[in-house]
């Protein structure tokens, strides 16, 4: 690629052949994109990856703009950034689809037309035919894609990236649709950023002046860190013992919504640092952050700042997609109760976990109370809310960050119990 970046990126003979078209036009387009991207990043080479998570199911938002719903044309433009439709071979790397625009079973609840549903099915089936696993979740690590420590990955998804980097010790930058698609086809990604061990050391020391224990506490701490850090790496001091995996999932999602936290260290909890000193690599921290009661109040106030009242007509649980333990908890809270008829109650989980929740009877309990368990998508990604919904409640800092600007709805943020209470009464009680 002439004229782009520094020209510093060196390809192997095999990569050069791919760029020159040995494996067809689509692979050549993918390699071209990786070279442009890598040179801007200042990468000197690519690295092999066999674990890619991307988002390349397309619907009307893309087909309207392109003027066609042909899956090959959509994939060529939006996934490969190619200037004309190209034949896409089966993917070279093990690849998964992240969260998508639609629940394959309950799409009617989203208000989709039959035509739109069909269009999305065609796109999804095309992707499957290329060998991409249709996991359709923002949490692949909950349902069968658990990267190994040190494994070079090419993942998108702002909540999954900090999880696999930090908890599992895998290595990925926050990829985007085009780079993930290119990695699927080539098995390569630029060797830059968090792929390099020296870039994975902590820069900021975080001290906790308030106890951080519940899922709610961790969500607020995450949002706070995102506010104050910009692609910097925190190490959190003073956490004793294991942390609830749900809390860790919500924490990373919050931190990478308000900000840009792609990797964090918690000695004794995350993969790469047994101590603060080790996380810092023996260096002094660039800066220290204290997390205080006032910070908790500020975050909670901000996350409720779009709400102008207390009536609730929609409750959303499961961002990132709910763990089985969360679905079970919701079922426990709803068992034998009845959701207010003016409230729509949706829980979102990976389809594989919905299947398990069905076997356990939890889906039935939630449905008997008047709620639904949805999969494959979420309101922010699929861009849908129940008809007429004005104000929603959620236990997710990430969803309440994104849904109001995306859908023009007001939001309330609290713990799961507060959300279920709001569903039962139609009112938010702080």
């Amino acid at each position, binding site marked *: 690629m002439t*004229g*782009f*970046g520094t020209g510093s990126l060196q390809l192997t003979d095999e990569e050069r052949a791919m760029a020159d078209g040995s494996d067809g036009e689509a692979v050549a387009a993918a390699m071209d*994109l990786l070279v*442009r*991207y890598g040179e*801007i*990043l200042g990468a000197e080479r690519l690295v092999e990856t066999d674990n890619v998570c991307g*988002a390349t199911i397309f619907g009307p*938002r*893309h087909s309207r*703009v*392109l003027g066609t719903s042909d899956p090959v044309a959509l994939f060529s*433009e*939006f996934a490969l*950034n190619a200037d004309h439709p190209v034949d896409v071979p089966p993917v070279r790397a093990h690849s998964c689809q992240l969260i998508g625009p639609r629940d394959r079973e309950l799409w009617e609840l989203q208000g989709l037309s039959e035509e739109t549903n069909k269009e999305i099915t065609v796109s999804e089936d095309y992707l499957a035919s290329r060998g991409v696993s249709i996991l359709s979740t923002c949490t692949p690590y909950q349902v069968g894609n658990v990267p190994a420590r040190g494994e070079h990955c090419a993942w*998108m*998804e*702002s909540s999954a*990236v900090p999880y696999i980097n930090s908890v599992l010790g895998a290595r990925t*930058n*926050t*990829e*985007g*649709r*085009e*780079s993930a698609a290119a990695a699927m086809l080539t098995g390569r990604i630029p060797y*830059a*950023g968090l792929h390099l061990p020296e870039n994975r050391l902590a820069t900021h020391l975080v001290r906790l002046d308030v106890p951080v224990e519940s899922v709610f506490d961790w969500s607020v701490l995450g949002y706070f860190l*995102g506010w104050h850090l*910009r*692609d910097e790496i925190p190490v959190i001091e003073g956490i004793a013992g294991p942390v609830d995996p749900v809390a860790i999932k919500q924490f990373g999602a919050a931190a*990478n*919504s*308000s*900000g*840009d936290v792609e990797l964090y260290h918690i000695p004794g909890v995350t993969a790469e640092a047994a101590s603060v000193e080790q996380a810092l690599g023996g260096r002094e921290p660039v800066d220290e952050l204290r997390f205080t009661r006032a910070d908790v109040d500020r975050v909670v106030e*901000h996350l409720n*700042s*779009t709400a102008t009242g207390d009536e609730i007509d929609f409750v959303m649980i499961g961002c990132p997609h709910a763990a089985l333990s969360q679905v079970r908890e919701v079922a426990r809270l709803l068992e034998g109760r009845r959701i207010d008829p003016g409230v729509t109650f949706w829980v979102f989980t990976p389809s594989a976990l919905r299947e398990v929740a069905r076997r356990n009877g939890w889906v039935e309990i939630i449905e008997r109370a008047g709620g639904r368990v949805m999969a494959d998508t979420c309101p*922010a990604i699929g861009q849908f809310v129940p008809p007429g919904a004005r104000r929603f409640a959620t236990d997710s800092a990430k969803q309440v*960050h*994104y849904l*109001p*600007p*995306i859908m023009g709805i007001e939001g309330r943020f609290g713990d799961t119990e507060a959300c279920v209470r709001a569903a039962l009464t139609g009112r938010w009680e702080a």
Partner: protein
Amino acid sequence: MSERQRATGGMSQRSFPVRTLVPGRAHGPVLLCTSEIPGWGGIDPRTGNIVEVGHPQRGRSVAGTVLVMPGAKGSSGWSGQLHLAQLQDKAPAAIVTRRLNAKLALTLAVLRVPAVMDVPEEAYALLRDGCPATVADGALVIHDD
């Protein structure tokens, strides 16, 4: 005529050396963003408007601007969202950033609009919201009106 106007042939403008991320030349009004922007869920691709709750430049459109920002944050959907915006003629004409991360690098590779970083602080001090600017290979040119 000021010394600087004489130096630029009467035109009131100043040129600063910068690091080129994506070569090319583009001109437009500066949109001076004082906080990092999220792409997905932060910029509406149909209008180019910044929509993040609490963002200081919320409601302003990035379309056709020389977008000056501290950096990109948030979702991995940055490139996909700006790609959609570009196909609807709502992408920035050029991007000037303080910080470069993977999501912004990919966005630049996809958009292929001129982009620079390492702008001297002296230039930042002169940049005003709405003032015309040109990004050209290796230089940021700030015009006066």
